[in-house]
């Protein structure tokens, strides 16, 4: 065994940015090194890999059968009017409206008395999120809802869905509250993050300010059990007070340091994850 050839010092780009210890304070891509003033090969590849995961998350289709099996409860499969991913990305309005066949399916399924809660699980902008996180959230949340004496409709699994798709479905079933677990817009370091949107008195045309959102549900963010407990608390409180949105405080605090996310004024025109 001969020793591998010594790498000349010239090719240690990180020596030019010797402050990697600052990474203890942030996940930002700091102290990346430099070659000349350009990004070293290793960092170019890491960035490319992260972007690839996020891109694939946007374009991966939801495996409906596997999800239904993982949820292990009664489910009904519905879809929006967006036929393909490219339609979905260009036309958010189509993703907010049920396909006529799905609307019909729900109309004939309407039961008496109507359910208190409709739960929808959907792909949104990352099917991976629903695939990986939704079952764990519901496994904690559903027993809590049942214990609180609430009637829960069969869980809807929806494809090519935007947040507001649950409003129409809930209105068709006569549910008082919609809970939508939907894949969030993938970030470079979080391709599989799930968002949960809670809406009291859901109906087509409901404003986003009337929703509460629990976001960043993933193992490295808010874990499924903690998310389920927050959602249970919000659900019970929303039904008791008959409202959701900016006036409904999230008692557990949460990402916004005690402020529900819906109150946060976006100071940039944000890309719609809805």
């Amino acid at each position, binding site marked *: 065994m001969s020793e591998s050839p010594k790498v000349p010092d010239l090719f240690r780009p990180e020596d*030019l*940015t*010797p*402050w990697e*210890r*600052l*990474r*203890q*304070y*942030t*996940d*930002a*891509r*700091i*102290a*990346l090194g*430099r070659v*000349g*003033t*350009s*990004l070293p090969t290793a*960092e170019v590849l890491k*960035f*490319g890999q*992260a*972007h690839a995961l*996020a*891109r694939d*998350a*946007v374009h991966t289709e939801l495996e409906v059968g596997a999800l239904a099996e993982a949820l292990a409860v009664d489910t009904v499969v519905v879809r929006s009017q967006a036929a393909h991913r490219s339609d979905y*990305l*260009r*036309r*958010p*309005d189509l993703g907010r409206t049920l396909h006529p066949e799905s609307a019909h399916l729900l109309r004939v399924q309407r039961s008496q008395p109507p359910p208190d809660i409709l739960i929808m699980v959907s792909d949104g*902008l990352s099917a991976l999120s629903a695939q990986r996180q939704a079952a764990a959230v519901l496994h904690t949340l559903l027993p809590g809802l049942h214990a609180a004496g609430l009637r829960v409709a069969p869980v809807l699994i929806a494809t090519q869905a935007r947040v507001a798709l649950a409003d129409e479905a809930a209105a068709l079933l006569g549910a008082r509250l919609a809970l939508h677990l939907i894949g969030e*817009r*993938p*970030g*470079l*370091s*979080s391709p599989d993050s799930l968002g949960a949107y809670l809406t009291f008195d859901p109906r087509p045309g409901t404003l986003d300010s009337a929703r509460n959102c629990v976001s960043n549900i993933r193992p490295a963010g808010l874990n499924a059990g903690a998310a389920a407990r927050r959602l249970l608390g919000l659900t019970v409180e929303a039904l008791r007070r008959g409202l959701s949105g900016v006036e409904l405080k999230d008692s557990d605090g949460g990402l*916004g*340091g005690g*402020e529900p996310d819906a*109150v*946060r*004024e976006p*100071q*940039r*025109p*944000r*890309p*719609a994850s809805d």
Partner: protein
Amino acid sequence: MSNATLYSATLGRTHHRFADLKDVLAKASPRKAGDELAGLAARSAEEREAARLCLSELPLTLFLEDLLIPYEDDEVTRLIVDSHDAAAFAPVAGLNVGQFRDWLLSEAATTQTLRALAPGLTPEMVAAVCKLMRNQDLVLVARKCEVITRFRNTLGRRGHFSTRLQPNHPTDDLRGILASTLDGLMFGAGDAVIGVNPALDNVDACVRLLTLLDDLRQGLGAPVQSCVLTHVTNTVQAIERGAPVDLVFQSVAGTQGANAGFGINLALLTEAHAAAQSLGRGSLFADGQGGMQRGQNVMYFETGQGSALSSGTHAGLDQQTAEARAYAVARAYSPLLVNTVVGFIGPEYLYDGKQIVRAGLEDHCCGKLLGLPMGCDICYTNHAEADSDDMDTLLTLLAAAGVTFIMGVPGADDIMLGYQSTSFHDAWYVRSVFGYPPAPEFAAWLDSAGITRAGQLQLPPIGSPLREQVRQLGAG
């Protein structure tokens, strides 16, 4: 001429009619997902060319008469009309839109004539002419413009290129933000502004961030300004509490309704502008007449095509025209910086790299023609059909066009806002290819602080103030 004749054109054997001026502008626009989403775009490539032909023959004076949104309905329209400078407009008053494009590309349009013309141009005129311009025209015309602004340094000089240092953190952790800020300063970034997008929207959090950045600036003696990009009302409250506010930030849009969606109106901006100016925190500069004058450009605005449509307040305007009207709002307050956040809004407005590149060039050119210090957040989201290569293309084109500033985000990855922008390394790519230094006062400071030597990046010596800041933070 009746409107039916005015707003029509014949291509070959087909006669194309357009409903009104808004319709001509929208259908003459290059293809954009947002205009299609709004149902405003041309229905065929031929119709688009007919609209461009029609537009090319419309007189510029028409835009002063046929107002896209009625005067009585919209305060942005009133601002545009009431602030129009007829004397400045005179040199081009006899031209139609097509002739105006020719004039802009001709020797008659120089840095001096364009500077004098700016108050005579309306957003609708510049939006219209851009629709007749190819990408190279947008580069060439913008390059002729020079817009200089000052607070603690001089931004926008021809042949210079600046960066906003954007050290965002998902929970506003002060040490996390400081770590990214130091990373950027070690790369010589931040002369346009060190600007944080806060995750928390409250005044206490903003004051903490403002204090952190101001302490750092004073400790290093750096000729830079800082900003926390929170709602204007929060910044006004921070000023009232005595916080060290350099710049007032606000997102602005081109219709009264869209601005209402941002929770603002012109009166609110006027109040904030006056409050920030009254602090007198800018540096003193020679005024060229033997005296000294304080840097008084205190506003930082952000815009972006599609923002009006996203709140349903576009009033039937195509997204580029609505965007240009946002620049009328911005210029009323003599901003230090205006930033079009071009690819942030998502693919339903700008679908792919081609549309993002086009929009970035349009926005930069329109802003510069109207006399604004235009920068660009060259960026994309993961659900857009775009990647780093598209950003490199737009970066190179905007550098050629003389863009005032771009963003500097560690590794181009904003971990708070969840999108990709440009990095500190990207800024050095531009410096290498084009030879552009940063703002002169900042360039001198970088050399004196050992961050650069004769303009070339180096590792500052151990014990130098910035290196010492890094060591102390690293030691925890």
